[in-house]
């Protein structure tokens, strides 16, 4: 809806402008970033030829096409998906916990994912389903299982108090991630598994296959579609549980829906990229400073910005020290952390977060 509505012949001008241009700018930046990222690598692909190829032309040589469609694009799509999923899930959890410092891992998914991945790396033979290896599959299962456990632990008399969720999430996550050290000690492989696990723990978007991407795209689509009706509910929930209940919001249903959708999004991101820190924390945060706290407005902008942010980070991660690669999670932490602190200090006086 635009900034104004006609009310009985007069115009109701909304005080808070929706800034629809922001979505357009973000989309344009996203297209540009995809083209630039697709050009960067061991073999340089010129941006003009890339653009023509992608809108249906046949401007690249066969070798270049193979590089583009089997190496560059899958990785680009993967970072878009992971960034978007993590950011939206961060937005949902921040709304649910009424705390701008919550992130997608806040209710214990990271611990379960770590343990699952360790089991996959150290104990099980390497198998793969739809392109996902054992580590990714078990990380996905582990993330969902630990969230289920946390939710069950925090449930009292048919209600799930937020504080109980946070505390149970913290305890379960810590327990599970430390128990993965057992498995590392048992490792007879003299460090290979450790290295695999370490790169996964620090967040690495490896070389995904198209079937993998299709599955994660589907999960992201489900997650985004499910978030749309929740966004307004999160605005109401910001007034506090009792007030929201009085206004007719079913707080418990909203809570369950946010946890389910946030978990699907987080687990999807974990399966593709491991544990990538700060994205889910800072992207919604940055946008809140531009757009204000209305979740309805934040949702599409967060999905786009998250995708853009992680694409840029991942491109830098693979280009910065080529031919070697940084785990993208290291980069998001190194850039995201200080940036977050800067924002925090800069806005401390003006905006109460």
């Amino acid at each position, binding site marked *: *809806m635009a900034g104004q*509505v*006609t*009310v*009985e012949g007069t115009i*109701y001008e*909304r*005080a*808070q402008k929706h800034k629809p241009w922001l979505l357009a700018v973000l989309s344009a930046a996203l297209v540009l970033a995809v083209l630039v990222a697709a050009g960067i690598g061991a073999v340089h692909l010129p941006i003009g030829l890339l653009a023509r190829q992608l809108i249906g032309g046949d401007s690249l040589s066969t070798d270049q096409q193979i590089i583009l469609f089997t190496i560059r694009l899958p990785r680009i799509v993967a970072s878009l998906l992971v960034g978007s999923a993590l950011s939206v899930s961060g937005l949902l959890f921040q709304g649910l916990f*009424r*705390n*701008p410092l919550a992130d997608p891992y806040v209710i214990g998914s990271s611990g379960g994912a770590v343990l699952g991945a360790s089991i996959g790396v150290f104990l099980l033979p390497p198998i793969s389903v739809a392109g996902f290896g054992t580590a990714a599959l078990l990380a996905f299962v582990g993330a969902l299982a630990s969230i289920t456990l946390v939710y069950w632990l925090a449930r009292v008399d048919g209600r799930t108090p937020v504080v109980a969720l946070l505390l149970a999430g913290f305890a379960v996550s810590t327990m599970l991630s430390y128990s993965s050290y057992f498995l590392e000690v048992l490792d007879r492989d003299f460090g290979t598994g450790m290295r695999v696990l370490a790169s996964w723990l620090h967040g690495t978007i490896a070389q995904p296959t198209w079937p993998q991407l299709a599955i994660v795209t589907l999960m992201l689509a489900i997650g985004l579609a499910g978030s*749309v*009706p929740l966004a*307004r509910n999160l*605005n*109401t929930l*910001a*007034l*506090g549980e*009792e*007030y*929201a*209940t*009085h*206004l*007719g*919001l*079913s707080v418990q249903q909203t809570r369950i829906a946010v946890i389910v959708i946030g978990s699907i999004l987080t687990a999807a991101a974990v399966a593709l990229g491991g544990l990538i820190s700060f994205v889910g924390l800072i992207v919604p945060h940055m946008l*809140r400073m531009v757009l*204000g*706290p*209305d979740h*309805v407005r934040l949702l599409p902008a967060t999905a786009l910005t998250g995708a853009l942010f992680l694409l840029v980070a991942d491109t830098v991660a693979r280009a910065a020290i080529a031919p070697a690669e940084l785990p993208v999670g290291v980069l998001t932490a190194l850039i995201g952390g200080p940036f977050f602190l800067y924002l925090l200090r800069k806005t401390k006086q003006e*905006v*109460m*977060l």
Partner: protein
Amino acid sequence: MKPLIEFAGVGFSYGDRNILRDLDAGVFENQCIAVVGPNGAGKTTLLRLAAGTLAPVCGEVRLKSRDLRFLKQREIARSVAFVPQNVEVPFSFTVEEFVEQGRTPFLKMFGGLCAGDYEAMRRAMELTDTWSLRSRVFNQLSGGERQRVKIALGLAQQPQLLLLDEPMQHLDIGRQFEIVDLICLLRREGIAIVASMHDLALIEGTFASVWLMSPGEPIRQGSPDEMLRPKVLEIAFNCQLHHRPRLLERMRNPMEYTV
């Protein structure tokens, strides 16, 4: 005439701590009631029971003759608005976005706000004189402004009954009179009001009736004249008012002492 809200044999307790017992009372259209009593007497509990966010342990609370237990909270919130004492908002919502939440009971799952919603919001902000504040951040408002914005949220629900929990608390005397004026204005708009009040001096002239709650005692109802007598208050509040003659005088003549 049927009451808007009716308490029929209502009892309530937190665990084994009894708060209310055998409460029979009704709030009628256009009525303006002050609920007074010492801390812990159950003033807020009474308001929450009327708002449907607490269910009575025994007895029934009825909204226009219908048991609240069988009504959806959305339906209740379209007739009854509850303005809580404290609201903590974690994000920097603007006044407009805050007041918009009052439309929640009217919104469909996927629908946005329509012209009628904006009209209700505008009316609510105009009545409370908060229209000019609408692009300000709620968390940065002063106490008096915040109180009026909270009332605006309640009015955006287009209620027939407005429940105010300690609306004058932490306000200076000038802002208290703003709220008093607002209450009188809303009364003329035909909205019934039940407010829990600590400052007894502000009751006379604003509220037509007083419900006096005292722990372990049945509620006493009457006009401010009957209820705000030193003898009655001394017993209800368990204190000695005659040691404070100036306080008594101020209560009888609030205007003289506060202007």
